[in-house]
């Protein structure tokens, strides 16, 4: 049977690439250190397969058809389509069709109805953390795109339930694999809104604190606060999926720092496998 290898979370703001040179040296050092620490923990966890939970930044989906959740079941995903991500090493990223199909089937059996795709483009949301973690070997990736871009979005509690479902799918998969989950995005930021550039450090720190507390308090706090903390903050949904997969236990902050040069409250975390 497969086993749960651990959960990880990382911010993914585009300016971490596009405006990297304008990040002050001390913050660059901390960001680099946080990505590397996450990479170190991921290497130690040694996942064969990684479920990558990210939004789709209009790379695959449009208003014609924008799924709440889409699971990538193909043998391959395409690398990031953004021109400024062209240095990303990998135009194609191997998937794990068999586990992805198992996850899809377990979802449907449990009364969840995700969309599916046999060929997704993995944009900066998925790829910046994978790149910056400096992994020598990227695990087989099972993309899980959760809408946190175009309202209405999946509820916060549903995202936690999705995480539990991913965990169940891992534990019922017959193959002898180690399977982890990487959530990307957040913490506070605002994109294309009059508040663009605002980082809500107190919100970020309280959110981080609550990941170690009761799930109910976390959801209540986020429900109350998210509408006024910038649209990018909605990506915390992906962290909730990882939290659910970790069964709400073992959260450890790797680092948090507000970085005005990239207009994101940058958070990095891991959940111990247990």
């Amino acid at each position, binding site marked *: 049977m497969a086993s749960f290898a651990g959960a990880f979370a990382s911010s993914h703001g585009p300016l971490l690439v596009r405006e990297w040179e304008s990040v002050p040296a001390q913050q660059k050092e901390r960001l680099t250190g946080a990505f590397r620490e996450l990479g170190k923990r991921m290497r130690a966890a040694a996942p064969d397969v990684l479920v990558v939970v990210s939004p789709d930044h209009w790379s695959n989906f449009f208003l014609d058809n924008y799924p709440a959740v889409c699971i990538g079941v193909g043998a391959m995903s395409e690398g990031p389509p*953004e021109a400024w991500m062209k240095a990303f090493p990998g135009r194609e990223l191997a998937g794990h069709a068999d586990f992805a199909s198992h996850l899809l089937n377990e979802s449907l059996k449990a009364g969840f109805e995700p969309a599916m795709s046999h060929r997704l483009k993995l944009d900066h949301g998925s790829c910046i953390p994978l790149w910056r973690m400096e992994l020598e070997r990227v695990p087989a990736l099972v993309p899980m795109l959760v809408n946190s871009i175009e309202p209405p979005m999946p509820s916060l509690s549903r995202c936690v339930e999705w995480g539990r479902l991913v965990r169940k799918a891992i534990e019922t998969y017959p193959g002898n694999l180690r399977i982890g989950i990487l959530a990307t995005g957040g913490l506070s930021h605002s994109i294309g809104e009059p508040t663009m*550039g605002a980082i809500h450090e107190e919100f970020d720190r309280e959110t981080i604190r609550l990941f170690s507390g009761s799930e109910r308090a976390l959801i209540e706090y986020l429900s109350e606060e998210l509408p006024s903390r910038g649209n990018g903050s909605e990506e915390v949904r992906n962290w909730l999926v990882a939290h659910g997969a970790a069964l709400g236990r073992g959260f450890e902050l790797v680092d948090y720092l507000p970085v005005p040069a990239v207009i994101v409250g940058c958070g990095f975390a891991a959940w111990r496998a247990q």
Partner: protein
Amino acid sequence: MRDYWLSKLFFDLQSPKVAAEFRADRDSVLDRYSLSPEVRKALAENDAPFLAQRTNAYLLRYYFFTIGMKDAEFVQRLRGG
């Protein structure tokens, strides 16, 4: 509110090919989309608050990035400045 065709224009402009066409001959690209005169005027005037009410904030930002506007000016315009 979502203006489908305005949003579609912004979505399509993510393609470097379409963006290059847009830079070379803006009107010929705009003619492919069913845009109201008010929306075309707002595009011509870079009226960010007007456009913001009609599309997704990420798409709006992509658009102004594509036409080469710096974030500082974009935000200033969004705030009505």
